[in-house]
Each structure stands twice: as C-alpha cells, then as structure tokens.
C-alpha cells in the first residue's frame, strides 16, 4: 500500500484544511478512503444515532501530485481510520506553507505523515513534520463504508443560507430536543419545535414532515463553514433527511435519520 501526494497551491491547501476542519467537527474518528481519482471522508455509524456522512474530494482539484497503490490490483483502494482532529490541527499549522506533502508511512505503526515547508519571516524555509497515527481498515470491513444510495425522497428542495438556519436552530436548541423539518414541493421549508409551553416555527417557506434530533442537525450546520454552491435537502417522510451539498470541488452528503 502506498500513498503520496503534494499540495502546492495556497488556495487548495486552505480549502482542504477547511474540509478537514468540517469533518473534525462532525465526529471524533473518521475513515479516509484513498482511490486513484478521489479522496473520501466517511462516517458510518449504524449502531449509534445512524448519522452517516460521505464526503468526496476529486483529487485533481487539490493535489498537484498524487500517487497511490491500493491493497491489491482488483481492490485499488486504501481505507484508514484516524482521529479527524489530528488531521485538521496538523493542517492548520500550515498557514503560510510553501508546500505540503502527505504520505502513508510506517514508523512503529502506520501513520499519515504530513510534511510542511513553512516560509518564515526571514523568507527561509522551515520544515515541520506531523506523524498522525492511523489504523488500516481490513478489506472485510469495506462493505460498511460504501457510498450510500440516495433515497427516493418525497420532497426535494434547495436549502436557504446555512448560516441563517444555524442561528435559528441554535436558539431552538434551548427549548426542545426535537426538531421538525417540513418541506413541500412549492419550495417552502419549515423548522418547527414544540414544547409544553411554546411552539416555535421558522418558515423558510412550507410542508412534508420529518422529526430529527436537533443536536445532530446543529452539528451538521455548525460544521459548514462555507455556503455551498448548491445545497439540496431530501426528505423521506418520517424516515430521514438527506442533505446533499455541492461546493465547487467537493461534494458532501449527510444523512440524519428520523426519531421514531
């Protein structure tokens, strides 16, 4: 198994850092899948609340150099598990980097080694290395980490500006644990909470119902730092909500199951 890649452009590095920070906000450990044409951040948690996330980064949008060799010829992929925060923190130290290289290494145990060439004030280079411990995921567990199918939704609508939704939901969190998301085909979206004393509804416009855990929804919104080019919300009535966000060069899908 081999993997080495290099990011030479500051904007790409910045974007990659932001994506990894977003993943770090959603979960403690995540799976990184490396294939010849793309990187994926995957969160599969069927046992827990069932929240799962799928994020795909086409590699040419980020890396100036990219080489990988998977487990075998027919299974040309690498699946590793790591603490998402370790990666985001290591990337954050590369603010003024001239170049960033990442590769899979084995120093006492498998690591994702991030080497950064920093430009110091005196315009000389300084080398920084981070060895992030990872766990290689064996092939037999790969089944659980495949791209989820987009469900046939009852309603599919575009999302309003995420920041607005986030501030609304943050205030709602104090009143109730459950959030009702309603949407209809007219392009209306409602976020509703009900408690004994009060019922608060925010209209983004109207109908089609699913109840979800408000904290999961908030966690998802909190992780979004950039407004996507296009965000779609699919609701399967009483079953789940599926968010599909498309940024310029990254696509993110997020599933929140309904509370029964």
């Amino acid at each position, binding site marked *: 198994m081999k993997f080495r890649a290099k990011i030479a452009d500051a904007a790409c590095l910045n974007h990659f850092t932001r994506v990894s920070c977003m993943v770090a906000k959603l979960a403690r450990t995540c799976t990184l899948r490396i294939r010849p044409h793309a990187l994926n951040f995957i969160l599969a948690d069927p046992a827990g609340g069932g929240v799962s996330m799928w994020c795909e980064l086409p590699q040419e949008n980020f890396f100036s150099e990219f080489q990988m060799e998977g487990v075998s010829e027919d299974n040309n992929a690498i699946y590793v598990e790591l603490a998402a925060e*370790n990666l985001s923190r290591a990337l954050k130290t590369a603010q003024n980097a001239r170049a960033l290289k990442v590769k899979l290494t084995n120093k*006492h*145990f498998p690591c994702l080694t991030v080497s950064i060439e920093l430009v*110091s*004030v*005196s315009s000389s280079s*300084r080398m*920084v*290395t981070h060895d992030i*411990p990872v766990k290689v995921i064996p092939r037999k567990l790969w089944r659980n980490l495949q791209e989820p199918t987009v469900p046939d939704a009852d309603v599919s609508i575009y999302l309003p500006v995420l920041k607005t939704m986030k501030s609304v939901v943050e205030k709602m969190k104090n009143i109730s644990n459950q959030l009702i998301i309603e949407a209809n085909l007219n392009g209306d979206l409602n976020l509703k909470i009900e408690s004994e004393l009060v019922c608060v509804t925010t209209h983004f416009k109207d109908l089609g119902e699913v109840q979800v855990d408000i904290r999961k929804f908030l966690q998802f919104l909190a992780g979004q730092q950039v407004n996507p080019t296009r965000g779609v919300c699919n609701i399967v009535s009483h079953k789940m909500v599926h968010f599909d966000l498309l940024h310029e060069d990254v696509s993110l899908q997020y599933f929140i199951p309904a509370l029964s």
Partner: protein
Amino acid sequence: MLKCGMSGSQVKVFGKAIQALSRISDELWLDPSEKGLALRSVNSCRSAYGCVLFSPVFFQHYQWSTSVDMNNGTKSNLNCKLGIKSILPIFRCLNSLERNVEVCKIFTRSDKCKVVIQLFCRHGIKKTHNVCFQESQPLQVIFEKNTCSNTLMIQPRVLAEAIVLFTSSQEEVTLAVTPLEVCIKSSTEESMDLNSSVYSEMFVGPHEFEFFQIGVDTEITFCCKELKGMLIFSEATHAPITMHFDFPGKPMALNIDHMLLEANFVLATLADEPSRASSPQSLCLSQKRKRSDLPCSNSKVGKKDSKGMESISRKVAPRKLYADEILSNISALENSGSPIMKRVNSDTEEEPGSPSLRKCKAKNNLMEVMPKSYFCISDIEHLPPLSKKPGFGVG
C-alpha cells in the same frame, strides 16, 4: 514595606508578568529590594521557578524599606506571598487596562498583612483592591547561566510558532540541538501506540537565532506549559528570549534581559536514559552520589519499563528536581549559612510530603523519570552546607 507607582502601559507589562508566573504556580511572592521589585513563583513539585525583577526605574516611583522587629531589632524584608487567584483578576483585560488606567499604585500595610493595589482610571474612577498576604520568605533559585555549554537567543515569535504545533495534551517538548540545526519536537515515550497523539517536529536553522552557540549536541525535554508562560511575557516586552542549557537532567534557564526588567525562568529537564552512556550523564550521577546519602539509589534512572517507573515513584517522596542548584531563601544567603529552608509561620505552609505530590498529577511524567537524588526540602537539613562553587550564582 513597599510603595510604588506605575503608568497604564507599565501596568500592562506588570500584568503580563503575573500572567506568565501564574502558569508556574498558584502562589506568588512579592519581594522588594534595592534592586527593584521581584515577583517570584515556584511550582509545588519544585520543577519550575520563575522570577521577574522590575528595576526601580521601571516605576514612576519606587520606595521600599526593611521593617525592624520591635522585640529583637532584627531587620526583615517584606515576606509577602499572594495567591494568584486574588491578584490575577485585578490584571485581567490588560489592553483595556492600558487604555483606561492612568496610574497604578501598589503599597503594603504590614500592620494588616495586606497589599493595596489602586488603579486610578479615566473619568475619575478609582479601584482599590486589598489583597491579604501570607508571611512567607521567598524562595530563590540560583543558576549560573554562564557555565552552560549551549546558548540560544531567539525572537519569541519563532518559538511561539513552534509551540503552536503541540497540542495541550502533549505536556512535554524536546529540544534537540546540534551545531547545524535545532529541532523542537514532541517528546516520545516508550509505549507509543495507536491511541497516542500526533508526533510533530520542527527544524529551525541557525540563521533564525540572534545568538547561536552550541557546545554540546544534546536533547533536553521539559514542560511546555511553563515555556508558554515565558513566551506570553516576552511578547509583551518585545525582547528576545535566551535559553541556557546543557545536558539532559540539568535544568535549563530562560532569560529576558531588558533595560527596565529582567525575567528568569528555570525549568527542570528530564534526565537522560543511561543507554546514552555519554560522559555528561555520568558526571551528573557522580556529583549526586557525593551529595546525597539518601537511601534511594540512582539505578532508577535505568529502568526502561514505564510500569516499573510508576511503581517506584509512588514509593518515594516527591522530588525537587534541581541538580546542583542551591534552593535557598534570601536570608540564608545573607547569613552565608547552610541552605536550610526557613519559613515564618511555618504552620501555614504545606509540608513537602505527599500533599505536593497530589498537586503534581500533571507533572507525573517528569516526576517519574527524574532520578531520585535531587533534594527534597527536608533532606537538605541533613547535608553539609554546600560550597559556593561549583559556580552557581544568579546572573
């Protein structure tokens, strides 16, 4: 007796000194003398010491005097120990203090064991804080910087960039130097496994230092937290930090020398594994053997098994981690007597027994692996007075 005053911008520097020392310990000594006002702090494990000395010209006005004991006519200094929790909140929000405070006056009232801090702010606002102090003779660490083989002087910003690489969960940092380069890295432990944190390292070339003198290739490991304290303070003074160090086990000194003030932090470093078998290590051991007739042997340094180390550390009393330094109080120096710790009102002090070990939970790593033969306060009494050589004196 102390009476001094400073302006708004001086208050900011003074406050930064207190913040830096708060990283070392929960207690602070206010120690005025003819050299100026010194703020001193020692942590409970005795593995870190900090002192910031403000010279009289730093202040707008500065007066101090010894008080004479009515009964026997002996002179005594202001022996004033303050809790950091009482004094730190006064110097919060230093930027707004700098803008709003016109004059800050600090004076003592020894009749009531109080320090009064008055902030005269804009718009006629006057804030008065009466802080009670405990009578306690300050500790002073004497460390001869000129005998260290390695000296580095660096702008604080470069060090700050390095320190940011290390997470708060990583307590210790290793500094590895050769004449060609300096490497700051996470300290590796024997039992690194999957759940260990990220290992990071950063190389800095000699040209980034203002002064670079490496006599001995070495790797020293010390606690990150106290270094951060020193960095906070140096950024406020815009002065470079000088590091003096030698072989592992010997404490390192961080020093800021400025016209108006001087800051010294002395940090214990982890002693080396014996597998190195380099001569500095054996020198260290033999010196200790001469001094200490403590029952514990130095063979504990050799234990590679971290479990073994843990069980050893529980049996021993907490160690004070200074090698060849004289840990003394100022009056002992004046009498040029033995370095026995003297305290006034000793019933209010904690005994250097197990209570301080409890406080050192965070420093367990450092405590476990350091050789036992550093002094405990109580053990000093059994030892003959140390000679003034081998050349240790504060710079």
